[in-house]
């Protein structure tokens, strides 16, 4: 086999077959994918399922702390988890650029495999296409996911009440900062590391407290600021958070200070934001902190009566509005 992806790998002939057998079936062929049917046949225990899809187009494909492969698994698994579901099955759609080194593809697929195992999900169906050089940026991935709803979760913003607590499971903005620093080639000692990781165990660890959990989200694109604004938009309540309680990693913080980025606007890929009744906040934090992915979990604020407003108490005790970012995160002039 050549050492890079050729147009013929997507042509449906022998090369295609080889690629699928050697790279896909070898990794994911234990279950329904084994005989490469046109569709996977799945059996459910539950009557309520969650179904989601996401496409991944990150540049560079590999960055400190992860690559597009584990990101594509974690992103979809996390969307299911924060909806109160136990992730079960994934599809894997690959769009490959002619000329992509096969070694890169293998590293990415190894990551998909590892991440899927770690998340206890099976890749049960998929598709591979090859496009001409220049028509895609190396490799795009789409994953769709099916999860079974965990009984007890009734997530709805209509159940939010004054004094409810906002919790986050770990440092904010690590993924966005890591990708940015890799993209721009910043050479930083102890620089940012992506937090690409699953949050399903964090959700499952608090399933028995589900009745008092109002809402969950993973703060990906747009960061915590976007999630908090989504939680309050058009509602009769607001949210107040405290800067001194927000967890940030030192490397991420350093990059943000240098570039003038507001980390509330920067993506995480392995963090959970949860809104719950005060009565269960301490128990949730204790369970999270006992898991490696929740060691840095914190309570960061509360629900207030300031309708629709997200307010930050700043590090020095002032206060300001937390707004959503308007578009691209752009470096400032000086």
């Amino acid at each position, binding site marked *: 086999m050549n050492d890079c992806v050729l147009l013929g790998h997507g042509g449906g002939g022998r090369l295609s077959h080889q690629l699928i057998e050697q790279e896909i079936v070898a990794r994911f062929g234990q279950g329904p994918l084994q005989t490469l049917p046109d569709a996977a046949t799945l059996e459910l225990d539950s009557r309520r399922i969650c179904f989601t899809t996401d496409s991944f187009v990150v540049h560079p494909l590999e960055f400190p702390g992860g690559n597009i492969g584990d990101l594509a698994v974690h992103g979809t698994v996390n969307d299911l988890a924060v909806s109160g579901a136990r992730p079960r099955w994934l599809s894997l759609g690959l769009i490959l650029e002619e000329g992509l080194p096969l070694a890169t593809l293998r590293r990415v697929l190894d990551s998909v495999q590892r991440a899927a195992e770690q998340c206890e999900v099976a890749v049960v169906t998929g598709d591979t296409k090859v496009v001409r050089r220049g028509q895609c940026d190396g490799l795009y991935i789409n994953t769709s996911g099916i999860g079974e709803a965990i009984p007890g979760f009734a997530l709805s913003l209509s159940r939010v009440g004054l004094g409810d607590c906002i919790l986050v499971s770990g440092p904010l903005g690590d993924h966005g900062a890591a990708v940015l620093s890799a993209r*721009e080639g910043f050479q930083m000692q102890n620089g940012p590391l992506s937090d690409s990781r699953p949050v399903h165990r964090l959700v499952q660890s608090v399933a028995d407290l589900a009745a008092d959990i109002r809402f969950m989200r993973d703060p990906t694109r747009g960061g915590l600021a976007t999630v908090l604004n989504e939680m309050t938009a058009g509602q009769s309540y607001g949210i107040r958070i405290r800067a*001194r309680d927000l967890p940030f990693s*030192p490397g991420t*913080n*350093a990059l943000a*200070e240098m*570039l*003038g980025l*507001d980390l509330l606007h920067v993506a995480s890929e392995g963090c959970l934001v949860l809104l719950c009744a005060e009565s269960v906040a301490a128990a949730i934090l204790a369970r999270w902190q006992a898991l490696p992915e929740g060691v840095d979990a914190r309570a960061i604020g509360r629900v207030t009566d300031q309708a629709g*407003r997200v*307010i*930050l*108490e*700043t*590090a*020095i*005790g*002032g*206060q*300001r*509005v937390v*707004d959503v970012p*308007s*578009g*691209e995160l*752009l*470096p*400032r*002039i*000086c």
Partner: protein
Amino acid sequence: MTRYIEGFRKMDAASHFRTTLAEQGRQLAEQGRSIHLMEVCGSHTMAIARFGIRDFLPAAISLVSGPGCPVCVTDPGYIDAAITLAGQGKIIATFGDMLRVPGSRTSLAEARAAGGRVEVCYSPLTAIELARNHPETEVVFLAVGFETTIAPVVAMLDAVIRQAIDNVSLLTAFKRVPPALSALIADPEIQIDGLLCPAHVSAIIGADAYRPYAEQYGVACVVAGFEPLDILYGLQGLTQQLLENRPHVDNQYGRVVKAEGNRQAQRLMEHYLLPADASWRGLGTIPASGLVLRPEFARFDAVHRHGILPTPGRINPRCQCGEVLKGKIRPAQCPLFGVACHPDKPLGPCMVSSEGSCAADFKYARGGA
């Protein structure tokens, strides 16, 4: 590094300033006075908004934002020229803030979407790298900025000349802070009692540059850093000067700023650049407030090299950015603020740049937190 910064963001120290400023406010009120302090620099504007510093000020002290965002004072005609060059196949290298600034008709972000090569840089040196990687075309660096930015851009030009690279040029809109301050202070319609002088601009030009404002116009001046405690300390210092009727230049940012500034940077700037009249969006033309390439370096001037005729361009007539930049109105007093003019669809430059007063107020203080 972050631990070092945290030292300038301590809540207990900030509470102390809150108490002191409240006491100063009481004394001003007793004297029947209210004072107007202007933060000149866009990075101060951002930090003030980001850390909620207006919360710390008593009613007798008002803080207005000055013209210190280089993006905000750039004419739309400049953007038009950059877009023209992008249309000719040149690579436009720019700091990110410029991307969404409205030109007369369109922005660089739209030009990029239409196929123009627009590259966002974190350092002027990226222009050299781009030029090396693309010998077939020319890299035009958008040389916008105050003294802080001018120094590293000129250092880049110096490297271009030393390394005999011929496919880099500058589209200049350099601005000098002191002439703009002089114009504002001399404007009878604007009341400025004290200036929170910029941090990094002062590192280049030196704290002594502000002496004429204190000595001739009686304006209190404090050079302050960008951290919240720096700013609170600066505001307290300005108020104290005014309470004691003893305006002078106080350099509180001695860890970075010297009285005489950075001589090496000044020499480099002088070698390559000459003062010239410059047009400031919203303020008009201010004599000797710009810097342009000396004639002997004209071959690195994109305007000269490509025979572009720069025009001031067309500004939306309802845009009040000029009044905001002069500190005459707060952003929320502009009828377009947050309605027709929004960070997602900015009409005026103050809403575009993250350092712009309107963007800072929209982002951090809409309607008062």
